[in-house]
């Protein structure tokens, strides 16, 4: 049991909290409110429901439920909402947080233990928040002789790049932050940055174990990048597009995993390697090189890298869903008409909600599959890993490229093919 320090005074504790609240209120009123009003004064306010939105109107709408809906609708369709909340970062971070919790409980069940239990009363559901608070409150130690700017910049760039991959992922028809016509290639371009970060960070740490870990990360990711891209090629052949939204909607009746099981397998294995998850966690091999390229991380630097890793896990699982599992397609289970009686306004778009639901379910399923090898496999050795990447997976991915070409030229799939889609 943790106990309070000897000189603990409850009055002092409450006093410090009151003091903190006082300062926050002072700062908000003196700086925050003027800032808001200055911004509102200069920004041209958009019309909502035919009325020009002024701060006064905004506040009056907030207290009237029948007028709040249009505001929410308006907010939902802004770009900032897409980037920050729904298909963008908050959604990804939420799934990442759920992944961490699921991983801990799931592995615990596999290994005949209980897992997090106390934080948040119910099955330790707030354990992640407790861990985050702990990481934030820890000191960040930078090794002497480290390259400070790079040491600081790399974790931030790591998370930013992981979030950039998320921006390209469509969650429902029309719901994507950046609808790029070469979305698939852009995704691989962003994923190509990660070995660079591992190497930069390990070099900047100025230590031996991170250095070996960084080199291993580089070897591993280059060896698996090629089968990774090659396994996505048949999908492009079948759908005839590089746009991820088009790829998703192209597999309406039949998912591509039925035609391309080998590609899907190669893609899955390569994404495990890309994520440095357990059969392929050589860059962090604990018993050999302490913690690999993460050895010198501490406090929130470690937290950021972990966040980035799990956001990346979400991105790759989502990519798998879009390329092979039909994206957001699925039977319509939400009722098309659902209107609260007194307003007559449709409160949700049934198609979008249905699509987002199926997408989330499928993504979580793929994430569960990605967590599974951690419970049943030991770590692989570097030479076996390189052998697997360069010899086996590349050959396997070529097989399915030929199958895809045969399907298209045989007139079974693709434009004018026998099967619809």
């Amino acid at each position, binding site marked *: 049991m943790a106990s309070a320090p000897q000189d603990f005074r409850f009055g002092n504790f409450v006093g410090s909290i009151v003091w903190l609240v006082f300062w926050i209120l002072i700062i908000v009123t003196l700086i925050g409110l003027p800032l808001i009003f200055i911004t509102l004064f200069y920004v041209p306010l958009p019309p909502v429901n035919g009325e020009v939105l002024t701060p006064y109107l905004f506040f009056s709408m907030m207290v009237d439920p029948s007028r709040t809906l249009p505001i929410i609708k308006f907010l939902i369709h802004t770009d900032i909402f897409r980037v920050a909340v729904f298909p963008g970062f908050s959604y990804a971070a939420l799934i990442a947080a759920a992944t961490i919790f699921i991983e801990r409980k799931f592995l615990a069940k596999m*290994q005949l233990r209980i897992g997090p239990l106390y934080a948040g009363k119910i099955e330790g559901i707030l354990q992640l928040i407790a861990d985050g608070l702990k990481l934030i409150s820890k000191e960040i130690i930078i090794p002497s002789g480290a390259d400070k700017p790079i040491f600081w910049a790399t974790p931030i760039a790591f998370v930013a790049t992981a979030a950039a991959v998320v921006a390209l992922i469509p969650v429902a028809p029309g719901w994507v932050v950046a609808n790029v016509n070469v979305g698939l290639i852009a995704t691989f371009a962003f994923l190509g940055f990660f070995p660079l970060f591992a190497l930069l960070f390990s070099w900047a740490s100025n230590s031996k174990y991170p250095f070996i870990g960084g080199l291993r990360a580089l070897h591993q990711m280059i060896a698996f990048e090629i089968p990774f891209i090659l396994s996505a090629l048949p999908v492009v052949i079948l759908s005839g597009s590089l746009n991820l939204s088009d790829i998703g909607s192209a597999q309406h009746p039949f998912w591509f995993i039925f035609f391309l099981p080998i590609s899907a397998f190669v893609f899955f294995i390569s994404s495990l390697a890309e994520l440095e998850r357990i059969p392929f966690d050589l860059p962090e091999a604990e018993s050999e*090189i302490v913690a690999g390229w993460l050895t010198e991380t501490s406090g929130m630097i470690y937290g950021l890298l972990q966040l980035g890793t799990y956001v990346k896990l979400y991105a790759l699982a989502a990519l798998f869903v879009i390329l092979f599992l039909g994206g957001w397609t699925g039977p319509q289970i939400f009722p098309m008409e659902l209107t609260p009686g007194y307003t007559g306004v449709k409160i949700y778009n049934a198609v979008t909600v249905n699509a987002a639901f199926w997408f989330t379910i499928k993504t979580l399923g793929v994430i569960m599959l990605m967590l599974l090898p951690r419970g049943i496999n030991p770590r692989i*050795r570097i030479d076996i890993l390189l052998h697997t990447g360069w010899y086996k997976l590349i050959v396997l991915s070529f097989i399915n490229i030929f199958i895809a070409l045969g399907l298209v030229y045989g007139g079974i799939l693709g434009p004018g093919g026998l099967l619809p889609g």
Partner: protein
Amino acid sequence: MTDFEQKVDETMKMGLQIVKETEEDRLMTLSVGPQHPGSGHFRFTVKVDGDYIVYCDPDPGYVHRGEEKMSEYRNFIQNIPHLERPVIHDSNNITYSYSLAVEELVNIEVPRRGQYIRALASELNRQVYTLYWLAIYGIFLGHSTMFMWPTGDRELFIDLLEALTGARVTHAFNIPGGVRNDIPEGFKDRCLRQIAYFEKRLVEYEDIFYNNPLFRQRTEGVGTLSKEDAIRLGVTGSVVRASGVPFDVRKVEPYDIYNEIDFKVQYMKSGDSFARSMVPFFDMRESCHIMRQLLDKMPPTGEVRTKLQPNPKGPAGESYKRVESGRGALGYYIISDGSPKPYRVKISVGSFRNMLALPFLLIGSKLGDMPSIYWSLNYWPVEADR
């Protein structure tokens, strides 16, 4: 110079030559331990050229406690609690051979029931030790389930030993003259239930760990120790048995009642890391078999301990006794000058002898093989330092 010495010399020279021939910049000296998750209380320095280990220098002694010198200042009974400290999770075996040696010195007989209980405690403790070893081997290879399962099942054996001796790890159960106390009521049924459960679990271990293709890839053909080298390096226990030498002290020079027990010496012929990890697993299975027989043949009633004088002493003389511990032959050489305190105690442990094979196997192998070779040597740093 024998051909074996020549081979050792060549191996070391090979390492040194690579060190000399290549530029110094190519090599990186890595200190593995004592502040390293892959070493325990032990340090060895390796030099790596790329991914290959070209030089290895074991440096034990971080947990030296002077057990041998301490023994000279205490009498034969007082020595027991501190002598089990080097391997607290195999304490019944490390005190077993001490008790045997002292019994020879003071010239007493152990009652038959005492001998059986002693052997039973020793086998139970072998399971506890081997499960712990297996758990660490699992986590060394990155297999977290194989860390959790054995540590969980080990608890059940610890509970049995707690019921038997009263302590979870440091039992101080074996004493010259027998064991401290009789087995509790209902212990036999409980023990048989636990053995039946554990044999089921062993099959699951085999499925998830030993038959895993990734585990096999990592360990098969790695760090091969041939039969001749194993004998000449003087390794013992599971390491020498993995190289094809059926050497088990319980069979070769049976102590107490082991000559009445029917069991096979488990050994393999390949001598690689896989065999070294497999032999302790077979040992666990065989140990279940032995425990069943012990519980069966144990005399239902009787003394468990020969009463000694308050300060037992024998005539001046010396004795050497060894038993098969979890890490191989564990012997005590005790010289007595006729006083109640030993004149000199020398502990010969399996760990230290197995460590000698470490540089021999590591030089020329890959850095990624280091954990699988190091921990397959069945080495417990605290015991080696004594």
